[in-house]
């Protein structure tokens, strides 16, 4: 038994190290149990990543000649949209509105493949259809801040890139906007390949892949989009983990009164319960929290009538089950589901939810707070004077909407989960998730 005891002690010691390290008295707003966060070591960019950087900022690959990856994923806006509207305009004359709000490109370097149920990479033979089949009969654990580990095993969609998870790798993601006629509108693989062959950085392809690379358009563009993804993996500003909250976790920053109250409300399953999905705990491997469990939810954000597509009353953007994503369209239990985004740097955004229907965090907080207790504050009123609940999802899919995870388990007339002060405090806390905080020496 001796050996086992030693092993146990070592394991427990590593987990409890933070407790032993704590000072006996702490200052107000200080983390009483500081931890060490593991960040990717900063190294010079590889040749591949430097090539990717050139492509990321290259406007010549768009039909307008004016749009690059960086146009919508602006480095000055946490790699999110720089404009005020719900979507960005692209296409040949930069006059075509995009279909969805531009997601941030930060904190995607750890994103797992899209799967239904937990990612199981050692199992070599499971298809999406098989996974979905399991999900139709599996129980689902209610998502609260205190049982994130249990709900992570729910057989629901998780992982992947884009709002609907249709790409698994940053490489696949990069080719989406490049070819989308409403975005960069690159035309075709052959057109893009021809531009790459004559780009100022063309020789960099040869040094990495040999001269043969220019003969194969598909491969040339695949290498280009991989290089863009590699730039995102290596360039520290895509995942710097330098928020005030990160430093607070490490005992290098103190939260103000409002921020601290907001942090508690964020984690309080009787109140906001944000952490039920926007996981705030470091991983077991010591990696900083991502503020998303990467799962998909149907929250039923109100329809955004300012979008071009919604002029058609029969158009519904249903996320995982289409219309942009095609491969799981028959899994109608996922209709209306969109990916839970990270909340890191969310406070610098001006377009929230997949359709950009909200412009401020205040509106977002009101949505969570009043959707079920006072829907008239969230949705437009119909001719009957009643709130048009879930008005961006067809009635036949309303059962998919989350009414079990707090605060969405309330009913009309019940007290909202949060007061105005609570909402303000949570917003104060969200601002501590912006990168670029300078800790006190």
């Amino acid at each position, binding site marked *: 038994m001796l050996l086992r005891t030693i092993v146990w002690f070592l*394991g427990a010691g590593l987990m409890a190290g933070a407790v032993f390290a704590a000072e006996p008295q702490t200052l107000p707003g200080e983390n009483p149990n500081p931890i060490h966060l593991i960040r990717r070591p900063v190294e010079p960019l590889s*040749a591949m990543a430097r090539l990717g950087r050139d492509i990321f900022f290259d406007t010549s690959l768009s039909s307008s000649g004016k749009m690059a990856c960086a146009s919508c994923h602006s480095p000055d806006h946490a790699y999110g949209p720089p404009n005020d509207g719900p979507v960005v305009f692209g296409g040949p004359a930069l006059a075509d509105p995009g279909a969805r709000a531009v997601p941030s490109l930060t904190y995607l370097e750890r994103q797992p493949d899209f799967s239904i149920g937990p990612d199981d990479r050692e199992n070599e033979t499971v298809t999406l259809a098989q996974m979905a089949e399991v999900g139709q009969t599996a129980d689902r654990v209610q998502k609260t801040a205190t049982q994130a580990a249990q709900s992570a095993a729910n057989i629901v969609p998780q992982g992947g890139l884009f709002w609907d998870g249709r790409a698994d790798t940053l490489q696949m993601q990069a080719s989406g906007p490049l070819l989308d006629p409403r975005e960069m509108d690159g035309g075709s693989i052959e057109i893009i390949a021809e531009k790459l062959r004559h780009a100022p950085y063309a020789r960099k392809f040869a040094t990495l892949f040999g001269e043969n690379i220019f003969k194969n358009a598909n491969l040339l563009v*695949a290498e280009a989009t991989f290089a863009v993804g590699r730039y995102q993996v290596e360039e520290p500003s895509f995942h710097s983990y330098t928020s005030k909250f990160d430093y607070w976790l490490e005992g290098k920053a103190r939260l103000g009164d409002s921020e601290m109250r907001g942090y508690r409300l964020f984690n309080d399953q009787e109140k906001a319960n944000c952490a039920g999905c926007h996981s705030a705990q470091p991983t077991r491997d010591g990696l900083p929290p991502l503020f998303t469990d990467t799962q998909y939810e149907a929250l039923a954000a109100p329809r955004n009538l300012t979008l071009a597509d919604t002029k058609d009353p029969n158009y519904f953007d249903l996320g995982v089950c289409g219309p942009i994503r095609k491969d799981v369209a028959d899994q109608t239990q996922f209709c209306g589901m969109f990916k839970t985004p990270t909340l890191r740097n969310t406070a610098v955004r001006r377009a929230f939810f997949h359709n950009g229907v909200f412009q401020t965090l205040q509106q977002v907080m009101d949505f969570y707070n009043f959707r079920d207790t006072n829907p008239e504050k969230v949705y437009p009123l119909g001719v009957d004077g009643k709130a048009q609940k879930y008005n961006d999802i067809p009635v036949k899919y309303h059962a998919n909407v989350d009414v079990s995870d707090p605060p969405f388990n309330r009913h009309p007339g019940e007290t909202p989960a949060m007061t105005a002060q609570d909402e303000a405090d949570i917003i104060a806390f969200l601002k501590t998730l912006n990168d670029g905080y300078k800790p006190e020496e």
Partner: protein
Amino acid sequence: MRNQKLKTTLLSTVALLVVAVAATLIGPVIAGQDNDEIAEKEAAVHPNKLKTKYPIKHLVVIFNENRSFDHYFGTYPNALNPEGEPLFEPAKNTPRDINNLLSSPALLDSNPNLNAANGAGATNPFRLDRTQANTADQGHAYTPEQKAYDGGKNDLFPLDTGKGTSGGAGAFGTTGQVMGYFDGNTVTAFWNYAQNFAMSDNAWTDDFGPSTPGALNMFAGTTNGAVVPAGLTANTIPDGQGGLTLINDTDPTGDTCSSQTAQVSMTSKNIGDLLNAADIPWGSFMGGFNLQTINNNSTTGCARSSVGQAVGATADYIPHHAWFQYFTSTANLTHARPTSTKAIGYTSVPGTKNVDPANHAYDLEDFTTAVGAGNFPAVSFIKLPAFQDAHPGYSDPLDEQTGVVTLINFLQQQRDWDSTAVIIAYDDSDGWADHAFSPTTHPSFSTTADALNGAGICGVVGTTEPAGVNGMPVHGRCGPGTRTPFVVISPYAKKNYVSHVLITQASIPQFIEDNWLKGERLGGGSFDATTGSIVDMFNFKRADSAELFLDPTFGTVETRKQAKKND
């Protein structure tokens, strides 16, 4: 020798009891003093004192996952050397008669896989960069691999095996990716080992197909004689003689960590049985096997996991890779721990008559502990923790390199290195493209599974299928299958040598039998009797090769020690 006889008898009668004994043992128990005193004279068999045919007293087999020969050595010894990557410059005397892409340049410029049947995936082979170490996983089941080899034309890889999982946000994947190869800027350590020791360009899996068949052929030389528990499923096919052959992956029956719905066990003999009968110390050492260990990330049991450089956390132990778990005689289904470090490698706890519950199956950490304490088994089979086993999708060549180099650096520092040989071999090719084809020497004609030379045909019609465990020709063992890397690292390895002798996974048990067992064979249709020998990679007359310490992260040469002159 009285005791040896006794132990042998004991083993055959207790083998069935081991499971029950193991189940009751929860933690390590220190051997009782009484037994130690009683049997002080029954000193453990010491590997260095065993009579061997060759001057090899310790064989270490590092059995990795899912890489083809061209995928790792396609342009060997020429690397592209982009700025900022680990540099590789070949030695002047590097052999150039290697059967790879470089020696037939047409393969690089007008490859048969440009075949229009491959559709958008039709492509020439292309370099995978070091930043692309994390790739998608390719298809590597028994039938699709046969279709890709297309009767020896090797021209349908993108169509038949060029698909798989994505591998996470940072992974590289493209149509035609199956044609990708790494060079000395990524698999730097392997190229450096090849420069200083010996490798084969003619090493094959015994059969087409994935991990479990490969592991079984390395350990038993056969995949016939499969038994599926009632009510469960397995990737077996009828062998045409009333039995079953395993052709794809399935977890071992009864392993604590196995799938609850699909399991299989095997009834053939394996090399462990022969070693046990001769009382030769041996062990299987797998990352993640000790279910009591708690990793730094607080995971434990079957869910113990680690994080690699290129991919996220992945489970350390994968049951369908555990060759020994498929056989009643060598299984340790509960993952019982050895009684003590000195018991590692032994059937009975040395100095006692007590059967050790681990039954020759241990964690990888037990290997370094035992060897470091001077208890270096004669034969050690190693499986690195999954994140380092090289399998695309959850592992990658860079994590593999770290695991392999760390282990080989460690072994070269041991007193017994003088009499050690390390083999790095692979369970399958993952379906990665390879241009070479070996004429089918053991055909299979299963109407449901075989496809190399047309539906239901693998091999030349009219030739006889290989014998199964009962001596009759059986389906499902078609091969040689796919070509994989095979490297020998030893003071006795020929230096910077590439062997062209055709060998397979079953050449590993064959070498063990030749060295320790006077050439005894497994029988029951095992390929150990018919495959080629690996001895061409050795010069047993002199310990010629110097020690070579590599950087575990970059695979570059750290120090090279002068070869000992002992001729």
